[in-house]
């Protein structure tokens, strides 16, 4: 879930110029902001005129349209969206399928087919998952694989200890985690490993105290957390640190008022949330900021109605899907975060979500109430 937007945000441009090589590079560059993290690209790509959108008043959640949009994207493997997402298809699977489950429509896909595809991204030698078939393993995709299997209640297809050993083996001396064997450290990876191991009932495989200490060392003077010690506070990184501390029962390390203050200042005039000071509101922060606020019990400090209206305003009510902000093109990533944000605000007919595990509550309950294996 941490690989960011799946496509460049762009206005609906009345420009019928064909794509040039430069354009596609620009688009890939935009798509590459995915692995850059949490925000969507600010590149504006020239595109063929997309179909007109039914925008305007947010009104209600067009659930059926979104379901249809997700199922279509999942099937169209040669579409533009699929192509730019190719290397992170596993993340896309998590975003799309979790959204379907939140809208009570997980049965719209063939579970067997999905699980087979997921397992084709598995590397039995290492125990990790790649972003797509044949891609190198990385924790980013391993968590998505585990989360999707949780949705289908099929963790039994995993060699649980092998996967657990892969992620736990990436802990460093100082308690931090690398994303893969090449060593890049980031607090996102701390969350990913902790979440993965907790879902697999294997948290004991890491040094939890050291992991917690490292995360706490990334706490900033403004109450927020960055990617590494001293890193700029960023809503996405904050979610990862707060989530990891929540899962390990270590929320007492957080100054809730101070962090709550930082998070609340993310709410912009129109009701949407941004990820850092001076940035534009973006639907994905409806999740990162909101779940963090819920975990530290400060969500009543923001205007939830305004936020809900903002999210609903970002829908494409004719073709389905949600975009980062009103009038932009939709993508799977923002569709997921928009619905997830509404779930956290108890929007009717959307399943409730667990803010720490980023999965529907009934899925998480099933995992923890059943005896572990």
């Amino acid at each position, binding site marked *: 879930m941490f690989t960011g937007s799946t496509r460049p945000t762009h206005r609906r441009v009345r420009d019928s110029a064909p794509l040039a090589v430069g354009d596609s590079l620009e688009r*890939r*560059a935009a*798509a590459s*902001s995915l*692995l*850059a993290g949490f925000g969507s690209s600010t590149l504006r790509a020239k595109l063929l005129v997309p179909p007109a959108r039914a925008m305007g008043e947010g009104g209600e959640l067009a659930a059926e349209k979104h379901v249809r949009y997700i199922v279509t994207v999942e099937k169209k493997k040669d579409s533009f969206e699929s192509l730019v997402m190719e290397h992170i298809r596993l993340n896309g699977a998590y975003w799309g399928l979790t959204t379907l489950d939140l809208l009570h429509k997980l049965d719209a896909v063939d579970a067997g087919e999905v699980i087979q595809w997921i397992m084709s991204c598995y590397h039995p030698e290492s125990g990790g998952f790649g972003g797509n078939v044949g891609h190198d393993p990385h924790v980013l995709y391993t968590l998505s694989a585990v989360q999707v299997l949780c949705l289908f209640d099929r963790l039994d297809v995993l060699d649980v200890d092998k996967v657990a050993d892969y992620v736990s083996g990436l802990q460093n001396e100082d308690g931090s985690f690398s994303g*893969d064997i090449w060593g890049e450290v980031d607090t996102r990876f701390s969350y990913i490993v902790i979440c993965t191991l907790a879902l697999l009932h294997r948290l004991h495989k890491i040094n939890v105290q050291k992991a917690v200490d490292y995360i706490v060392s990334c706490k900033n003077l403004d109450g927020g957390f960055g990617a590494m010690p001293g890193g*700029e506070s960023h809503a996405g990184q904050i979610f990862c640190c707060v989530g990891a501390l929540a899962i390990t029962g270590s929320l007492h390390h957080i100054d809730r*008022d101070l962090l709550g203050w930082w998070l609340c200042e993310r709410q912009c005039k129109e009701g949407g949330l941004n990820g850092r*000071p001076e940035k534009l509101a973006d639907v994905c922060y409806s999740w990162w900021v909101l779940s963090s606020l819920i975990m530290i019990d400060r969500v009543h400090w923001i205007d939830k109605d305004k936020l809900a209206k903002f999210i609903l305003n970002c829908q494409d009510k004719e073709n389905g899907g949600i975009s980062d902000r009103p009038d932009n093109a939709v993508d799977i990533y923002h569709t997921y975060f928009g619905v997830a944000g509404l779930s956290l605000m108890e929007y009717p007919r959307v399943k409730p979500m667990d803010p720490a595990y980023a999965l529907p509550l009934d899925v998480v309950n099933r995992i923890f109430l059943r005896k572990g294996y």
Partner: protein
Amino acid sequence: MSHSKALLILCPDMLTAWNSRKMVLSVSYDFTKLKDELQLCTMILSYSPKNESTWSHRRWVIKKVSEHHQDMSGLIERESLLVKEIAEKSKMNYRAWRHRCWLISYMTREQVLDELKKSARWNELHVADNCCFHYRRSLLLALLDSRCIEGENSLDYKSEVHLLWKEELRWNEMLIRRYQGRESLWIHRRFLSQWWVKFLLSGEEMECCAAGISLVDLFLSQEIYLLSDCLNVPADEFGEACIQAELAALYILWISKQVPAVKPQLEERLHSLGSLEDVLARACPERSRLWTHLIA
């Protein structure tokens, strides 16, 4: 290597391609090849400035170089310059600035001071870019780091930092008055003041002042004066004066919460403007949920 290069130029996200290059480069240390690698990254970053895999690969290369070279100062200086150039075209680029902050751990004290000096002008031209102010905060914190202020020069170092801090506060105020409603500037001031007030309270500052007024009092009066100016700016068509008032009020709340010892003095100084609650109610009614809980 040439295949993965071609692939990465088209698709810098191909983690697998970057990994294959790391595998080849790991076989034996070759400085020329590593320099070429940095060039490849620079080229990709010129059109893909936010690409995480590229920045990450760059750090891997630099770490490899640092294992074989003692003097990294030239390399680090060029890296810092590269980020500056990329940041010019790609505003608020988290990945780029994160890289620049990461470089600080390789910098000498002189380099840190130099970076502070050199980057001030850039910041003045990009007052809405929170990343560049965060970078400055990281540099200032590095100067406060124990490895910088221990040893035989520690007193000199300490007084140098204090002078720098004072100048930073003055510079920040100048920018705040010039550019209305810029959140990054106020957030920078929150950081600066919090440390400054705590430092003044610790009694380390030896400068004399007018009898009967402590340095803390003087500082707080100046901040209230700034608040008052911000609350009285006439409204403008862009709503910036409004935002300025809101940010100023929240700034005062910040000091009162972060340094509780000065809360009574602040409230006394605020007297003519009303209570802190009054000020907040007038300046930021939309954030009432936030500050009513904080004041309580």
